[in-house]
Structures are given as structure tokens and as C-alpha cells.
């Protein structure tokens, strides 16, 4: 007995099933819920609300699902609603990111590439103002803080705007080796000295201290800029408060460049790198 015949035998009132299965012969979707508020309203699915049926019917459905699952002729996937949304959405978004992924495919450590695929998906959802905190959290849970760093860098666009150009520039050199790129890439991913990502766990003092320590680090290496990223009202407010701090202000070479929206802020600050003392001596004999 096919799944369709089995369903109609158990649920005689489920007349829609035959039409749906006939119309969508390649992909047959059944939605099972256990309440009266079915969240999936698509036309091309067969909905079964367990609350509407007797224990005998539910028992029969249970057996039918197991039998269909064990039938070698059928490809069956059981998946929860929210995961199904992610799987469907991921397939669409990854297609949009294929150029970036293709560029990095043979250039990044294998695990970083896996994280980058996830991070690009998170970035795409974030740009649609969809909640992404739980996705980033699950990524960090599996891969550790490195996944958080890669997601931060990716969401802020640094893979396209900084890491890709870095590789392209380095690879022009006659002495280029892949390892020389990986060494620089490692510093970026582990420390991202050019950026501060403010998160909800940081206090205003944490934000200020992080910015000042990164300024100090960058000055040491002659880097004269730092970009501060914040998402969410609370983080915006923290960054604004720190930007008025006298200790920070005295480090700046000019007014910060601020780009902000209702829910995000990006602040680029320029500061004066430490000038070697002999240079000062030459300028001021």
C-alpha cells in the first residue's frame, strides 16, 4: 500500500491528499502538528492535525510512517518545521554566495570554510533583519570562539573587502606562498586588530577598554584606523557613550566617521600611530 492509499484509508476525510500528491508527484509534503494553530498554510501540502483524530487513527499513522520510512523505494525525510525553513533557505542563499565561496574554497583551512558557509548564510539573514543570534550561538557551540570571530568578520563584510584583496595582493608577489597568506589570515581571524565588535555581554567600560587596547596594538604596528561595529539599540548606545569619552577622544586624529541606521552603527576612527623617535629628531633638529 502506498503512503497516499494508507493516508486515505486512515483519514477518509483527507480528500485533499490525492489531489496534492497527484499535482506534486516529485515532492510530496505532509505536515503534522498537534494543535489547532497550524503554522504551515501552503497549498501544496497535506496537513494532519493529530488533535483531530482518534488514538486508533494516530496509531495507524505512526505505523504507516515507519513502514514508508523502511520502504527502500521511497526517499523520506522527517524534519521539524524550523529546521526545514533553514534547510530550504540555506539552499537559496548559498547560491547567492557562490562566488565568494568559490574564491575561498581552496584557500582557507577546511573547518574555516565550513564556518564561512554558515557565516555567509547568517549574514544574508541578518541583512533581511531576521533573527540570527541562535544560529551564531549554535555555530560557536560546535566550533568555539573562532566561529564567532569568523561570523563577526563575515557579517561586517571583511571577507570580501579585506581578506580577498589581501590574498589577491599577496599572490602577485614572486615570493608568495600559501602559508604566507595563512599566517596573515590567522592574525586577522584570531585578533581582528582593525575591528571591534560590540556585543550584548560587554559593558561600556569593556567597550572602551577593548577599543583603547586595540588602538595601542595598532599604533605599535603603524596601523592608524579601527572600525567599531555594533548591532542592536543597547550596543549603539554603548558605542555612542564611549565616543564621548575624553580618554578615547584624545587618541583621535580627526572626528570619527559614523554610519548608522535604526539598528546598527559602524564607526571608523583614525588615530596617530606612534612615530619613531629618530623621525621626530630629524623633523625638530
Amino acid at each position, binding site marked *: 500500500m502506498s503512503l497516499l492509499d494508507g493516508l486515505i484509508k486512515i483519514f477518509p476525510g483527507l480528500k485533499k491528499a490525492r489531489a496534492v500528491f497527484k499535482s506534486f508527484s516529485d515532492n*510530496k509534503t505532509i505536515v503534522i502538528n498537534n494543535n489547532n494553530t497550524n503554522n504551515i498554510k501552503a497549498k501544496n501540502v497535506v496537513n494532519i492535525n493529530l488533535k483531530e483524530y482518534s488514538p486508533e487513527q494516530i496509531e495507524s499513522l505512526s505505523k504507516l510512517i515507519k513502514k514508508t520510512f523502511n520502504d527502500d523505494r521511497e526517499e523520506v*525525510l522527517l524534519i521539524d518545521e524550523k529546521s526545514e525553513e533553514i534547510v530550504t533557505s*540555506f539552499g537559496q542563499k548559498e547560491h547567492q554566495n557562490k562566488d565568494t565561496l568559490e574564491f575561498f574554497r581552496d584557500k582557507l583551512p577546511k573547518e574555516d570554510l565550513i564556518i564561512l558557509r554558515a557565516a555567509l548564510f547568517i549574514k544574508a539573514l541578518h541583512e533581511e533583519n531576521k533573527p540570527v543570534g541562535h544560529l551564531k550561538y549554535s555555530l560557536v557551540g560546535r566550533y568555539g570562539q573562532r566561529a564567532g570571530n569568523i561570523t563577526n568578520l563575515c557579517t561586517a563584510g571583511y571577507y570580501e573587502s579585506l581578506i580577498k584583496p589581501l590574498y589577491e595582493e599577496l599572490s602577485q608577489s614572486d615570493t608568495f606562498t600559501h602559508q604566507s597568506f595563512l599566517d596573515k589570515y590567522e592574525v586577522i581571524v584570531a585578533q581582528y586588530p582593525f575591528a571591534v565588535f560590540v556585543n550584548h555581554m560587554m559593558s561600556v567600560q569593556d567597550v572602551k577598554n577593548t577599543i583603547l587596547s586595540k588602538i595601542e596594538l595598532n599604533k605599535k604596528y603603524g596601523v592608524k584606523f579601527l572600525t567599531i561595529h555594533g548591532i542592536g539599540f543597547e550596543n549603539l548606545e554603548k558605542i555612542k557613550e564611549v565616543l564621548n569619552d575624553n580618554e578615547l577622544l584624545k587618541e583621535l586624529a580627526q572626528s570619527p566617521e559614523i554610519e548608522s541606521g535604526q539598528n546598527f552603527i559602524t564607526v571608523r576612527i583614525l588615530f596617530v600611530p606612534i612615530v619613531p623617535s629618530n623621525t621626530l629628531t630629524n623633523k625638530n633638529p
Partner: protein
Amino acid sequence: MIKIIFEKDASDFILDSFEKSIDEEGYIVEKNDIGQRVLTNNAEEIKIEEFAGIRKGSEIFIKSDLSSLIQLCDDLAARG
């Protein structure tokens, strides 16, 4: 392909169909051997709140974290 999408409140029904239950710590276990926790194909135990589904290949349990779902996408794509 037959896709059976279940809402969270039907998870118990799905697990029951496959003769699984939940132990005291919230892990999915074999109903007839509650000391035996089910494993994902990465040999990870799986809690009910992490349960995303089951796919064929005997019974492959899927976790709901992003990395596991990307792996599922790849596996489905490889099967055409």
C-alpha cells in the same frame, strides 16, 4: 521525495513512531532500552530540544544546529 514536516509539538509523536523516548536528562533513547541513547552520524548524543528530524540510511538522527543542517543540505544535494 516524501517530506514529513512536523511542528515541535508533534516531536513526541514522531519519536514514538520510531520507538524512541526521552531519558531523565532529556536525551533521546531507545524505548526498549532506555540506557541506549541514540546517536547522530557524528556519534553525538542528542537532546530533545536539539532534535531536528530523521532521515533514511537506517535511522539517521539530525541535530538542529546550523552546522548539522548544512550537512543535511549537502547530503540531500548529493542524493539528487
